[in-house]
């Protein structure tokens, strides 16, 4: 069987899997961004209780394995009465985990905005909230976009784990094909290429474009 023939037979299955991988990736990214902004801001709160909650969250999700978290969300939470569909459990686990890393990026970027910006906003008598949303976060966004570029690729790669709770993503389909045909080189080789192409020719250019767009908005380009 040539590789072309292999693709002719199994290509559409892998294409379906790739679509699911992309959807899982996009949803996980949304979750990660929301979690990152929320917990990143909480980490900077004046209220020690709020700060503490965020610190515990970040510690737990960064300090334990994504796979274990995925299994917890899918297999253990139902024991406490919280049943999640495997599709939801998949992107949620990846998003919650990566969001913990993102929260540290958000916090670091906010703290990297020069003090003079905070002071100028205060001198204009802005409320804390407006100062954050209108003055600090837009500038923090420019600072944190390059490291987010790496994190977003981690999110893409992280979604491969959802195959282990039987979400029919690319990795899942490829493993099924491998079990059925023993064509490991072709099956996993294709997966390798697809993940690389997605990361290199879709995710990275989008993140770069976003960086350029934001730099222009800030008048730096």
């Amino acid at each position, binding site marked *: 069987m040539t590789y072309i023939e292999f693709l002719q037979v199994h290509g559409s299955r892998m294409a379906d899997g790739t679509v699911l991988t992309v959807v899982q990736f996009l949803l996980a990214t949304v979750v990660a961004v929301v979690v990152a902004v929320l917990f990143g801001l909480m980490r900077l709160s004046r209220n020690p209780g709020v700060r503490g909650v965020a610190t515990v969250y970040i510690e737990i999700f960064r300090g334990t394995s994504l796979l274990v978290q995925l299994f917890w969300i899918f297999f253990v939470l139902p024991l406490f009465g919280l049943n999640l569909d495997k599709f939801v459990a998949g992107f949620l686990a990846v998003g919650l985990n990566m969001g913990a890393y993102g929260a540290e990026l958000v916090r670091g970027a906010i703290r990297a905005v020069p003090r003079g910006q905070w*002071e*100028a906003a205060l001198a*204009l008598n802005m409320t804390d909230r*407006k100062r954050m949303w209108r003055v600090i976060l*837009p500038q923090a966004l420019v600072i944190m976009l390059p490291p987010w570029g790496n994190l977003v690729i981690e999110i893409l790669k992280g979604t491969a784990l959802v195959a282990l709770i039987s979400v029919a993503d690319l990795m899942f389909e490829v493993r099924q094909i491998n079990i059925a045909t023993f064509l490991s080189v072709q099956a996993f080789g294709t997966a390798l290429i697809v993940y690389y192409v997605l990361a290199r020719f879709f995710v990275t250019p989008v993140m770069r474009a976003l960086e350029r767009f934001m730099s222009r908005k*800030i008048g730096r380009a």
Partner: protein
Amino acid sequence: MTEDMSRYPLHLEGDDVPMVRFRNVTKRYGPLVVLNQLDLDVSTGEMVTIIGPSGSGKTTVLRMLMTLETIDSGVIYVDGEPLTHMERNGQLLPASSKHIRRIRSKIGMCFQHFNLFPHMTALGNCMEGLVQVLGLSRREAEERSMELLDMVGLAEKRDEHPSRLSGGQQQRVAIARALAMRPKVMLFDEVTSALDPEVISEVTNVIRRLVGAHDLTMLMVTHQMGFAKEISDRVCFFFNGAVEEQGTPTKLFENPERERTQQFLNAVLDAN
């Protein structure tokens, strides 16, 4: 270390209430006493310049008035009302953030490094406080901002981001941004120190015009002795966190009484 606040009036009354009054204000950073029981009044419409050696507390005075720093003891009054404190049941208590916001609206500040918002145009910088803080409509805010950009000679730069403006232009936008809020008190902290010599006059000319045209109270820290002498109603020489000597520019620059003032002025004049 609680201070007996009952010796301070709850608010200032009378014919000559100063626009700004520091009473017995002390500021420490750890063991370092930066301001030592400072008393200082600034009258309405007055232009007061603060000079003094590096580290004498000049910037700290402005920052406390702008509420960028808290004070350790004493009271600051603005427009007759306490800024650092508020009245509750006939007593002065530390001010709530709501109280501070209300009084702070009377004060504007320009910084040594401009601190314009880099993601907004010159016009956007001026409009931001008007729309977001004062709640003006975008049209009103734009109108008022353009008046001020025009006043500082930058109407045609309205759509430029700060990164495309020279230092002198950025500082003028910063002045327009602060003035647009219509403060009663303007604070200038070494607003020409970060500028190339050839553009300093762009900024000093704007400030010069404010002295004539407005009923604006101004407090300015500067190392430009010539400018201070020319436009101030009064000059304060700071030393070790207190006013060592103050008076009209003529008196202070030409007939300083205190030895430290003389030494400082000699050193500065030698350097130039």
